[in-house]
């Protein structure tokens, strides 16, 4: 069916488009303007037309997300469901996740922590998130098998084969390392770890582990660069960790997760751990300018109650005493495990206000929004449904000033936010939420409206109240089908789980089988994610090709 989206303001920075025009789609793809009479015309007059939003870092599935629901059953509210999808109004459920992303015009979302030891459950959960294409990043960096290989000096080929085998079996879209070596060190009594500190029992460091993974990702040709969660998240001086890690990448492609939590410079050099922090947004952005191989997502903080979820068990253990309410879960798993710590970003509290300001400052100082992805590290900085409000604050300096005026003076004393006058344009918002994340994930078929793109399209009423505009899209198309009209879901179907098309090396498979049998008394079959586990869906997974 040929569809013409007519008369909207088409914003596609990848094609230099920002003006009134048409977008044509057919059979789920964007096509060139046609001489044929369209089967359907969508009137987008007075609206903004963008590609569907792409999320790179949101904790939407997996054992720790499940654990957060069990620890805080009252965090989300369930509402009475209208006719339609049975569980979309069940607060915090997978269906709720899919519905709320879709309402905002997002059509793809990636879970950044897919533990290979628990991959099937994570994928079963991802598959139950409707409306979106999904994916997961396989987590490596604390697993004993990898650390053994590195300790024994087995070389790049062995590491590459193990990473490839892990990706193939866990059906990941990319690779992430989370405080590499940190979970292992924590289990051996370490409570603080920096880039070159020794990981007990292995004689390795975060640098050596990460460096090996950076090489492996390049050799395999994973489109998404290694996704890195650095040491010392959230501590004063964490900016040193990020910058040191960036330099340690030595020009190799690297993505930094939730940079806001690392943009904390020491406020009092005499008392680095007790004197608090000040914004290091300028320093982080300067470092990014100097290293074009790197990208980051923000991890913006929003005020209110949330729950932090991380496989960085060293960090989560360190943060346990700040839990609010005072309860938390920490699992020392087969590799990382996970920590779930409830947290309140106190409205107008000095610390949370400064964190809020630093996230915005990072984005507003960025010279290239395509390398600066909007995330809240959901739910760690806050719930993803706050994106429209964040976009509003980026696009409207007056609105920002009004908000800053309600906050403590520390925002001006320890961050540069109040002095920034920049207002994001719609094109820059599209870079921040569409083209940037799609490029970062290596998904060339989305994040733009050029010919051949998937017809994942969001149409918003142009409204100076950007919160309202981006909260409820006027129309959202997924693969060319209407899924949202006037902010409400109108059709339910399942998207695809994107996984990298890699095959495990036969020799490494044999070796992994032997290792796993010895360690677990169970083999690779218990780590597998077979199609047969998804009997209700004809095709759950969609292959993503490696880089040439």
């Amino acid at each position, binding site marked *: 069916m040929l569809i013409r989206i007519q008369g909207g303001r088409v914003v596609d920075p990848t094609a230099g488009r920002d003006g009134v025009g048409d977008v044509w789609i057919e059979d789920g793809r964007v096509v060139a303007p046609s001489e044929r009479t369209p089967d359907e015309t969508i009137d987008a007059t007075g609206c903004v037309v963008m590609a569907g939003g792409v999320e790179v870092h949101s904790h939407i599935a997996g054992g720790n997300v499940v654990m957060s629901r069990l620890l805080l059953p009252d965090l989300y509210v369930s509402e009475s469901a209208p006719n339609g999808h*049975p569980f979309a*109004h069940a607060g915090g459920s997978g269906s709720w996740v899919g519905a709320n992303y879709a309402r905002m015009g997002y059509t793809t979302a990636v879970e950044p922590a897919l533990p290979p030891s628990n991959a099937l*459950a994570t994928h*079963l959960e991802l598959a139950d998130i409707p409306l979106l294409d999904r994916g997961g990043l396989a987590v490596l960096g604390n697993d004993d098998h990898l650390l053994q290989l590195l300790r024994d000096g087995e070389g790049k080929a062995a590491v590459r084969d193990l990473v490839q085998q892990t990706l193939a079996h866990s059906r990941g879209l990319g690779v992430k390392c989370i405080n590499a070596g940190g979970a292992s060190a924590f289990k051996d009594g370490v409570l603080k770890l920096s880039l070159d500190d020794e990981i007990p029992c292995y004689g390795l460091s975060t640098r050596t582990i990460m460096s090996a993974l950076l090489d492996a990702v390049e050799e395999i040709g994973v489109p998404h660069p290694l996704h890195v969660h650095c040491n010392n998240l959230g501590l004063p001086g964490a900016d040193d960790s990020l910058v040191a890690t960036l330099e340690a990448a030595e020009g190799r492609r690297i993505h930094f997760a939730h940079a806001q939590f690392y943009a904390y410079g020491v406020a009092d050099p005499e008392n680095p751990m007790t004197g608090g922090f000040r914004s290091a947004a300028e320093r982080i952005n300067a470092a990014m300018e100097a290293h074009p191989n790197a990208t980051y997502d923000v991890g913006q903080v929003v005020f209110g109650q949330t729950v932090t979820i991380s496989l960085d068990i060293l960090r989560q253990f360190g943060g346990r005493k700040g839990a609010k309410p005072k309860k938390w879960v920490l699992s*020392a798993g087969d590799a990382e495990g996970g920590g779930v710590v409830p947290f309140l970003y106190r409205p107008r509290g000095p610390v949370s206000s400064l964190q809020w300001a630093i996230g915005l400052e990072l984005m507003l100082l960025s010279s290239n929004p395509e390398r600066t992805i909007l995330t809240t590290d959901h739910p760690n900085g806050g719930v993803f449904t706050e994106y429209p409000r964040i976009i509003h604050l980026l696009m409207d300096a007056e609105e920002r000033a009004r908000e800053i005026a309600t906050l403590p003076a520390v925002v001006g004393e320890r961050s540069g936010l109040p002095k920034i006058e920049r207002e994001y344009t719609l094109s820059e918002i599209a870079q921040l939420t569409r083209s940037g994340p799609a490029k970062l994930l290596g998904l060339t078929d989305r994040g733009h409206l050029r010919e051949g793109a998937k017809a994942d399209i969001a149409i918003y009423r142009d409204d100076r109240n950007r919160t309202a505009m981006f909260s409820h899209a006027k129309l959202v198309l997924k693969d060319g089908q209407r899924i949202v009209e006037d902010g409400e879901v109108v059709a339910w179907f399942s998207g695809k789980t994107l996984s990298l098309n890699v095959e495990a090396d036969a020799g490494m498979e044999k070796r992994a089988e032997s290792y796993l049998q010895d360690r677990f008394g169970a083999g690779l079959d218990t780590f597998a994610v077979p199609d047969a586990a998804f009997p209700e869906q004809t095709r759950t997974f969609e292959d993503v090709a490696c880089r040439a």
Partner: protein
Amino acid sequence: MAAWVKGGAADVDAAVAAAADLLATARVPVLAGLNADVAALRAAYRLAETLGASLDPVAGPGIYAELGALSAGGAMTTTRAETTARADVVLILGNRPWDGDLIAEIAAAPIRRGRATGSERALLSLGGPQNGAIRHVAYGADEGGLAVSLGHLRAFAKGHLAGEEAFADLARRLFAAQYGVVIYDAEELGEIGVEMLQGLIRDLNESTRFFTLPLADPFQGRATVQLSAWTTGQAPRVGFGRHLPEHDPWRFDSARQIAAGEADAALWLAALPAPRPDWLGTLPTVAIVGEGSTEAAGETAEVVITVGVPGESVGGALWNQRRGVIAYADATSPAEAETAAGVLARIRDRLIEKGVSC
């Protein structure tokens, strides 16, 4: 494949239709048992939502002891593999952990990972059966039971009690651990006991690393909890009577609901073997049971449909006790069989055709 309607053999289509008819007329139906693979659990949640029914897994008591303590204070846990490879001090609580092969396996394995590598593992027990076959140091429980004993032990560990009692010695051994693990069964320990234990674990972690290894129930309860959480945002038991999922372990206790006369129809799902509920036969019931099980007979319920047994005659995603995760189990003796998920989906489709909605 076999099916029965009111005691007489029927084909599956007729049984599915009869099941839908039975459930469609119910005002307060319950779906109980839930010992099945993940696809079947998923289908059961969808059927319950359509019906406005509640769901109650047979694994309930252990689940609630664990979840109650978890939502009250949290937990610190580890895995079987980490315990076997790393733990230099293992404290076994009560009797149930001694069932099965877990303790023997841990006792036989050397410590080969982590800072305690090469050292001798200390196996300790509290309130256990004094199993002489496995070398360990046994501590007796207080008369008040395991939960009270843990309170007593925690008081020594915190320095609130002093003296040379056995618990003082036990507390010293725990603090000496480099990677300690307490193994327990939540149903045996009870919610208060689990909460006290997790408090002790938090105290120990002020100076060393110590975790718990709770035993999983044998009835897919762990898988049910996960699926329930991602499907409804909440743990079981869950009810859909008011058009939204409500978690309430007391209200949606199927045995209580049936005994109180609240429930007027039930669906018993046991694709894998589960203890037969006392209430079977006391109210109109649909039983979906594994082929070859003792319940696979016409007299079990008004409508009985047999299905493939996941991991035996059909494949399925199941809780893997050894790994402590959901893993796919291929059929060991593949056979042509309806799956529980398929039967549940067909009943739901039939109900939707009939216009049934909660």
